[in-house]
């Protein structure tokens, strides 16, 4: 179960994943119905699943309301803002997400040493 981010703990986990190849899931969304329920709204979303990267180091920064995480790659960066909750699941993956007041996911950043499920989880 996800729980509110404990920054020192998350920093330790981020450190443990550094300098080795990891798989990253990064995502943000305001939902597929944003402009359906508010014509002035604009649907915005992006995700990348199983980016295979190695980061030199990473940091978690408190913003008061939530957290930002940045991972420094040899040739670039991975960045997420608005993270509020985290969990280390049974596969030792670091799952972080930011939820709104109704529990809806707004942003997610996940780090794993093994690939995330990328095909449909279930075939007939």
């Amino acid at each position: 179960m996800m729980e509110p981010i404990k920054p020192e703990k998350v920093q330790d986990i981020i450190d443990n994943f550094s300098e080795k190849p990891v798989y990253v899931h990064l995502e943000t969304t305001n939902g597929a119905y944003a402009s359906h329920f508010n014509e002035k709204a604009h649907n915005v979303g992006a995700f990348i699943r199983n980016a295979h990267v190695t980061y030199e180091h990473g940091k978690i920064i408190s913003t008061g309301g939530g957290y930002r995480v940045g991972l420094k790659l040899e040739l670039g960066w991975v960045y997420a803002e608005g993270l509020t909750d985290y969990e280390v699941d049974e596969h030792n993956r670091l799952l972080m997400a930011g939820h709104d007041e109704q529990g809806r996911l707004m942003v997610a950043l996940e780090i794993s040493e093994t690939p995330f499920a990328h095909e449909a989880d279930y075939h007939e």
Partner: protein
Amino acid sequence: MSDYKRVIVIFPHPDDETFGAGGTLASLVDAGSKVTYWCGTLGEMGRNMGNPVFANRETLSTYRKKELDEAAGVLGIDVVHLGYRDKTIEFEVLEEMVTHLRTKLEEAKPDLVITHFPGYAVHPDHDALGRAAVEAVKEMKEEERPDVWMHAISNETSEDLGAPAILKDISDYWDTKWKAIRTHLSQADGMVDLINREDQLERLKTERFYTLDQLQ
């Protein structure tokens, strides 16, 4: 007795069946139809995680699959999973999906297919799977072709398409539909939010479907 012996429902997400057609499906089952939901994805990328949050991005599909099984039990329908991935259906090769669905339809021999109205179903997965389903039916031999009812959602629906051919007052099945909605626990809050909007509640109590001749 129902006019339809064999009904195939083709939507992309666990809960589309309940939200868009739950009352109609329950009434068809009541009248003797055998109804199977071909569910396109497991809704892996949904943003509702329960309220309070109990699912995460990696566990959501497991919850949603279980919730769908329960909802199907409430509605009296069977479930078959098509094995696509949430949010990605529009990027699959359309012809491959059409062949996949046509082959399965020729085998299942339904006399009614219920799907989304392509272009008027808001969510890109709805539009893409609806398009594939409609094309699949059109490719079938005329004598084997089932009736098609298409669910439209977009705000421009009435203005652009006029009145739907099929208008189902599902008041008699509202309790069943409501119960099915509640089984989709990870998603229920987002739905209940809608139900608090009078216009949306009205939409949920009258299920509307367009027929193939209304396709533009």
